[in-house]
Structure formats: C-alpha cells, structure tokens
C-alpha cells in the first residue's frame, strides 16, 4: 500500500471528531489520507446526546453506538482508543500519547470536546480518590453505567443543576425508583433558555412528575464521610440523600491546546474555516470557539464538521462556517419543551407575543425583530416547533397575525415550512402525491398552481391540501410562479368570474351548457372540466327551464347514484331527518335480498346505503324501493341530521326532529356549488353535530333556535359561525333558505361553506341574510321559492330513460381479459 499523501490525526473520538471523519470519507478522500484517531474512551463512537435515553431506559446502550470498531477498520482508520494525547508539538508536527508513543501528522484536528463543570463543592472529592463514592457527573457512557448501577440500590438523589442535562438526569434517575431533588443555583429552571414565567411553568410540570425542585440554591457541601448522607446549601439547609449527580454545565477541553501554544480563550480559537492559529491544525465541536461563541449542542457541530471536511479534503477550500442559530429540545418524558434564540425581548421595538396557561403547563412565546423570528419558546405544546425552527433558522416571512405562530387557527395547518418537508412526504393524501412529484412538475416547466394540480391531481381529492400544494409550488418555482389568470374564473374553460358569468348567461339567455361554450368560451371550445359546474350553475339560474344536456353531467348525476371503486353504485334513499319506518326498512331489506346487495351500511347522515348496485339495476332498485332519492351523490343539498329532540329526549329543548324534516322537505335536492349538509339538534349537547354542519340549528332554552353556518367535520374541521338566534321554526326555515340561496349564487365551484363563510365574513353574511341591509332578502327568497318549486325526484327517471343506454353497464364487473397490445 503506498504511503498516504497526507497524514490526518484526529484527537478525540467523540461526536465531533467522528462526524468530521465521516464527512471526510463521504468526500471520497479517505484513501489519500492516513487517518489516525485518538479517543480517551475505550469504545467506538457513540451518540452522547442519547445517554439521557439510556439512563431513562428509553434506549438500550447498544442502540446509541454510531460506529463500530469494524467501521474504523473498514475505512482504514487507525483507532487508538484509550490513549490520551498529552502534548502537541506543532513545530515538529507530532502528538504525544499517554502510552509513550509519538505520532506525526500533516493535518491535525482537535476535537477534544468538553467535560463536566464541577463547581467547588466541599466533599465532592476525596483526597487521591477522585469523586466521593456516590457523586457522579453525567457525560460519558461510563458515567451513565456507574450512575445506573448505583441508583438501583440507593433511595434519594440530589441533582445539582437545573439546566437541560440536570433535568434529563433527574427524570432518568426516577426510573430506578430513586426520589429526586433538583437543586438549581439560579432563580428558575433552564435559565439559559427560558424566561422566569416559562421557568415557573416548567417547574410545575417537573414537580408534577414527582421531582422536588429547589431554586436559588447554591450547594456548598456534600455531607457524609464514607457514604453520601446529604447536601448542604448556602443558607444552611440540608437535603438528605445517598447519591449526588453534578450537572452544572460543561467546560471545553482546551488545556491540551493551550499548553501546546495555541490561541485559547474560553476554548480553542478558530476562524471561519475552523482553523486554529496554525494553518495545519483545526478544531471542531465543543472545544472550539468561533466568533466568540462556544457551542454545547449538536447541531452546530454538524455544520462545523461539514465545513471542516470541505476545507481539509480540498472539496471546497473556500467553505466557511458562519456560526449557528441554536435551538434546544428537552428530552424528558412528560415535558415537551423547545426553545431557540433570545430568551427575552431586548429592544424597545421587539415584538413579544406570549401565551401562558400555567394550569395546563403550556407556555408559548415568540420574539420578533424587524419581521424576523429571533426567539421562541414552546412548553407543553410543541406542535408548531418545526415551522418556528425553520422561520428562526432561515428568516422566513411570518404571518401577519402573529398568533398563528403559536397556534393553528381556522385554516388547515398548511403553514408548516414547505422547505422543511421531506421530499417523500405525501402532500395530497387522497391521490398520493408527494412533495418530490410536485417539485419535479414545477421543474419540468409548469409554473401555475392549476397546471401542477392538473398534471399531478394533487389537491383534487378532498381539496383540503390545496393551500399546502400552492405553497410548495410557489416554493419550488422560487418566486417565478406565474399569476394564474384562471384562478378567479368559475370554471377553467370560460374566462369569467362567477358574477360576470351569471350575468352573461342571463344576458345572452344561454339555456344549455353547449350554448354557454359556444357564446363565451375561447373559440367556442367545450371543456370537459367545466361541464359539471356549468350544469349546476344553469340549474341554479334557470331551475328546470333549460336544456339539460346529459353529457354535461358527471356520471353520478346521469344515473342519480354514487359511483364506487369497482364501477358499481351506491343507492341512498331519502330518509328525512334520519327518521324511518318499519315499512321502509322492510322494503330496503327486500331490495337488498332481491339484488344480492353486497353491503348495507348506515351513513354518517343518518340514512341507509345500499352498496354495490350494478348500473343496469338502478331503475329496478328505485322502483322496488319506491322511495325518493336521498341525493347522496351530488353537489347538492344532502340531508338534515337530527336528534330525537323533545319528543323523547328528557333534555330536548326544541322539536329538532320535526324541524329537520321540515327543512329537508323544503330544500331537498337543491343543486349548489358544493355539498350542503345540515343538522338540527334539540339542545346544546349537540347530538346531531349541528355545530359542524354547513348549516346547523341548535335549540336553546326559551324556545329559541341558534343557526350556525360554515361548519365542517370532513377533511377540514371547523365550528360554524353563529349567524342568528331566532324564536320560531318558521324563521329558521326562512333564514336557511336565504343563506342557502346566497351560497348557491355566490360561492365558487366546489367552495364549501367552511371556506365561503370566512371569505364573505360572518358579519357581512348576517347583514345580507338576516338584517337585509342590502335589500337582497326578497330576491333570495323569491329565487329560492322557484328552485324549491322545480324539485323533481330524479329517481322517477326509472320510468323513462332520458338517453339511450343511460343505465347500460360501462364496465364488465368481472376481471377483464388481457387487452391485446399493439
């Protein structure tokens, strides 16, 4: 084997040293380097951060090893485990080992890390014996093993230090049945990362786990000669215990560098290339001081290791480390905590938004400076942590309503950082579209949201991911998103927003979908994607007074049933208010028998669904049922769910069943831009789920009814807004009619009320629908009256098919033979 060109020596086999070597190997330079690593600990390399998990038993010791001894061998690395370097001769380029050896280097990396800071406490040490038996630090795997062993047959522990490590140690020790008291010198826990208010809530959370906490407490002495018997505090108080863990911070291991003549302040001083004042010697990790910062966390170390590897291998000699913005997460079971950046606002014009709920142990705050996140604390609820970390790290634009930084409000939680989302993350859960697919589509040149949605079908299932899709498209296009002119159109094939489209249809007296295309579409071209919406719109405008072209309907509306995955259909007869009769049930059962219906299922809308009906059987099924259609297939008024109300329920305040049936009888089958699901519930216990319906009615004390609109409990969850409280069922029916008609006329295609109501605003809606400030109410009522009058049960088409082959099968329901390939 030829002598390596470059001898690389790494002092330190901890996370920084090993990570740097991994990065170097990744750059394919391992063969050119003869790598020697010195490690004090006689092991391969392990993840020190996870020692807390080993202590708490959440992880097995073997699970935290990063690189086995085999790994060193496989990569041609000489590992000198258990050998300490005592001196560096930077002029002769030699390092001296504790075993008497000397090793020459061309490049040297110092990654000596840090060691526990042990305050000067009387009795912590025994002369010539190191630590008092029963006194531990918490840094290495040996520390962890010793502590674990000792804790098993001891009963009371004092942990000195209420920072990250102290808390993790305290919680971990509890697993061994040890009663733990946490003694902290500062006035509140984790004072490096938290303000006093958050610290106080954290204290409550920690105490709730059964850990005693003493703050403002300087430990002056560890008591007990042979065995530890307690600790003494500066105020004279003593705490009895039989073991002590010191977790009071860390101190960089910089002495070796200092005595070898390198520039050392708090740690080894390095430049942006991680180089010390010797051009061939570098330092990385907790022993390095960069731009006056010494880091004790792992994330900066990863970044430093990358830069160092780039520089050392020559992969990118200009690579530079600019410092890290650090965030802390506490790994203590039962306490969720994340903190980053500033602890308290520093300038007069720093924005400081705080939410505090001590009883639940929740505290959230953000600090914003010049529209950038500069600090954040999440305690007890860390659901927003990924977005905040990303905003903090990359200076992302922040929502105008700052409260959205702390909570997901109203809209789907789409504001999580799209950049942070993994490529494989599934964005559209209906159609299984990943972030990578969306990005690839944008990169292939599609620069509009609708273009990407068309190409991938993302957002075309339930639609609840649409805003996330939009954000990813925007992000992937890197600002080069093209304004989507069609975004404001009612349908993609006709360049008009809904009000203009409706006006044009009326003005030109367009009475069929093909007439609308001929008059209004570019070059008169028809568009399959627009047909269903136009059919619906024409029915809203003309009721039945238009030419109903069946090809412009979706298959569900052609055959008045909901198509299923195998090409069969589901049949849901009307069951007003969810009330049925033995006679209806008998007929349904007979139909299920006669047509061998594979599944009979109760629906969420209090009806009965017959699934697996063949298309050609639909007319016969309807005839045998002799019940009207339940419209469980259209963008239309679906059903009114009710509870048993006053008739039987002892809590009922209003006759919800009767009102629900009345509403359904009046508005049954109305087409609209989206589904309309309603409910009437007889008291605020809300058994009929009226708060989460497109329109929900709730009976309240005093014979009054509350009307909620814009609720949803599907892919999107939203509690409806209170539109009005009225004092008669008649008023409910009137306002329901006005609201539904306004929605039918104003909402965009497929825009459910949960989006429509917030878009218009509940106050504005109330003004129009309830207070009639715009004088629209009479017109809404009149047009609704016409629509109601035009109701016809579509299942009557069983008597006369409208088109030839309307109910002919479109699929053989058996497995197809292989289609010949050209």
């Amino acid at each position, binding site marked *: 084997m030829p002598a390596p060109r470059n001898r690389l020596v790494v002092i330190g086999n901890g996370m920084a040293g090993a990570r740097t070597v991994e990065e170097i190997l990744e750059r394919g330079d391992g063969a050119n380097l003869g790598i020697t690593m010195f490690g004090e600990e006689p092991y391969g390399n392990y993840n020190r951060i996870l020692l807390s998990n080993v202590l708490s038993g959440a992880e097995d010791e073997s699970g935290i090893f990063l690189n086995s001894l085999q790994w060193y061998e496989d990569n041609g690395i000489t590992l000198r485990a258990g050998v300490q370097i005592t001196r560096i001769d930077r002029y002769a380029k030699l390092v001296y080992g504790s075993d008497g050896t000397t090793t020459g280097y061309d490049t040297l990396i110092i990654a000596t890390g840090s060691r526990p800071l042990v305050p000067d406490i009387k009795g912590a040490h025994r002369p010539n014996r190191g630590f008092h038996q029963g006194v531990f630090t918490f840094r290495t795997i040996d520390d962890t093993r010793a502590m674990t062993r000792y804790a098993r047959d001891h009963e009371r522990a004092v942990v000195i230090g209420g920072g990250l490590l102290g808390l993790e140690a305290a919680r971990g020790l509890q697993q061994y049945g040890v009663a733990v008291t946490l003694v902290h010198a500062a006035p509140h826990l984790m004072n490096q990362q938290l303000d006093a208010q958050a610290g106080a809530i954290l204290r409550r959370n920690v105490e709730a786990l059964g850990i005693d906490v003493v703050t403002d407490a300087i430990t002056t002495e560890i008591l007990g000669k042979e065995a530890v018997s307690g600790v003494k505090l500066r105020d004279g108080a003593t705490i009895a215990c039989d073991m002590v863990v010191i977790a009071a911070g860390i101190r960089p291991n910089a002495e070796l560098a200092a005595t070898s003549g390198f520039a050392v302040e708090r740690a080894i001083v390095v430049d942006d290339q991680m180089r010390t004042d010797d051009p061939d010697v570098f330092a990385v990790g907790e022993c390095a001081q960069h731009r006056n910062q010494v880091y004790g966390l792992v994330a900066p170390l990863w970044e430093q290791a990358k830069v160092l590897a780039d520089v050392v291998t020559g992969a990118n000699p200009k690579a530079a480390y600019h410092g890290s913005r650090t965030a802390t997460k506490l790994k203590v079971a039962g306490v969720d905590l994340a903190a980053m950046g500033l602890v308290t606002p520093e300038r007069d014009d720093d924005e400081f938004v705080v939410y505090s709920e001590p009883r639940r142990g929740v505290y959230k705050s953000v600090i914003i400076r010049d529209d950038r996140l500069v600090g954040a604390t999440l305690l007890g609820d860390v659901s927003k942590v990924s977005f905040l970390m990303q905003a903090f790290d990359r200076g992302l634009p922040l929502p105008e309503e700052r409260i959205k930084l702390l909570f997901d409000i109203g809209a789907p939680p789409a504001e999580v950082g799209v950049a942070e989302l993994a490529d494989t993350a599934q964005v559209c859960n209906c159609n299984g579209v990943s972030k990578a697919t969306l990005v690839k589509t944008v990169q292939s040149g599609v620069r509009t949201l609708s273009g990407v949605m068309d190409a991938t079908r993302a957002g075309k299932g339930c639609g609840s991911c649409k805003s996330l899709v939009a954000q990813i498209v925007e992000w992937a296009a890197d600002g080069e998103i093209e304004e989507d002119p069609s975004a404001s159109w009612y349908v993609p094939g006709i360049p008009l927003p809904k009000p203009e489209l409706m006006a044009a249809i009326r003005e030109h007296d367009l009475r069929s979908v093909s007439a609308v295309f001929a008059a209004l579409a570019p070059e008169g071209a028809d568009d399959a994607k627009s047909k269903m919406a136009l059919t619906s719109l024409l029915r809203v405008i003309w009721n039945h007074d238009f030419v109903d072209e069946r*090809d412009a309907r979706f298959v569900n509306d052609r055959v008045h049933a909901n198509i299923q995955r195998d090409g069969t259909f589901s049949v849901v007869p009307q069951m007003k208010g969810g009330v049925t009769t033995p006679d209806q049930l008998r007929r349904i059962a007979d139909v299920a028998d006669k047509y061998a219906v594979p599944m009979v299922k109760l629906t969420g809308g209090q009806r009965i669904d017959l699934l697996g009906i063949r298309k050609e059987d639909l007319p016969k099924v309807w005839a045998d049922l002799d019940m009207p259609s339940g419209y469980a297939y259209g963008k239309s008024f679906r059903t009114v769910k009710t509870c048993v109300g006053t008739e039987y329920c002892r809590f009922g305040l209003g006759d919800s069943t009767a009102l629900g049936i009345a509403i359904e009888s009046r508005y049954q089958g109305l087409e609209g831009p989206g589904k309309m699901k309603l409910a009437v519930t007889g008291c605020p216990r809300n058994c009929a789920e009226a708060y989460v319906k497109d329109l929900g009615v709730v009976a309240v004390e005093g014979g009054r009814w509350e009307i909620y609109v814009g609720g949803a409990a599907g892919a999107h969850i939203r509690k409806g807004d209170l539109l009005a409280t009225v004092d008669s069922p008649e008023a409910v029916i009137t306002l329901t009619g006005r609201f539904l008609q306004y929605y039918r006329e104003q909402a965009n295609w497929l825009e459910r009320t949960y989006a429509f109501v917030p878009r218009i605003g509940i106050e504005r809606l109330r003004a129009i629908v309830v207070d009639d400030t715009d004088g629209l109410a009479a017109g809404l009522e009149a047009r609704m009256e016409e629509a109601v009058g035009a109701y016809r049960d579509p299942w009557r088409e069983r008597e006369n098919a409208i088109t*030839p082959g309307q109910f002919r099968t*479109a699929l053989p329901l058996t497995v197809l033979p292989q289609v010949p390939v050209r």
Partner: protein
Amino acid sequence: MSAPATTEAFRLGQATELPPGEGRAYAAGDVQVAVFRTRTGRLHAVSAVCPHAGGPIADGIADEQVVICPLHQHTYELATGCSRTGQPPLIVYSVAIDAEGFLVVQIPSG
C-alpha cells in the same frame, strides 16, 4: 410505426344509441371498448378501462379533446389515448359508422 397489423372488425351497435357528447362501453370480442361521440359528431374509440385503477372510461365526461375518468379524474386524449395526468395511455381503436348505421370498431388481431 411498425408494419400495419391485421385487424378484425366488430359491429358494436346502432350509432343512434350513442348520445352526443357521451360514451358507451361495448365488447368487441374479448376487448372492452369505450366509444365516444363528441358534440361536433366525431367518433373515438379507446380501451374501456382506466389504467390507473380500473375505472369505467365510458362513464367519463368528455369534450372534443379529452375524456376524464370518473373515479379519480385522470384525463386522456381521445385521439391519441395519451394521459395528461401522468398515467399509462389508453389504447386507441379505429371506429366508424357503416352503411346500416352500426358502429364498427377495428381491433388488431393475433
């Protein structure tokens, strides 16, 4: 293109039974075919089963250019069978109306 393969002709049914703008499914021997008559009167025949999840193409909404599968809205060009939504293509067959008003489709044989 490879050498023209021999085809077999199948009568499917009366053309008048195919309403304008709509599609209907037919069996041509072992082959399932969806035939569409566009609003301007053009005829297209494609394989009847959506390659994505087996949806019934004949139940799809169509225009002069494309048909949209009713199950998951995958879109296919009627003239070429190519998907505009990233799916494998439909197979395109030649279709015409014969002297007696029947739809006739040509299915490659062998």
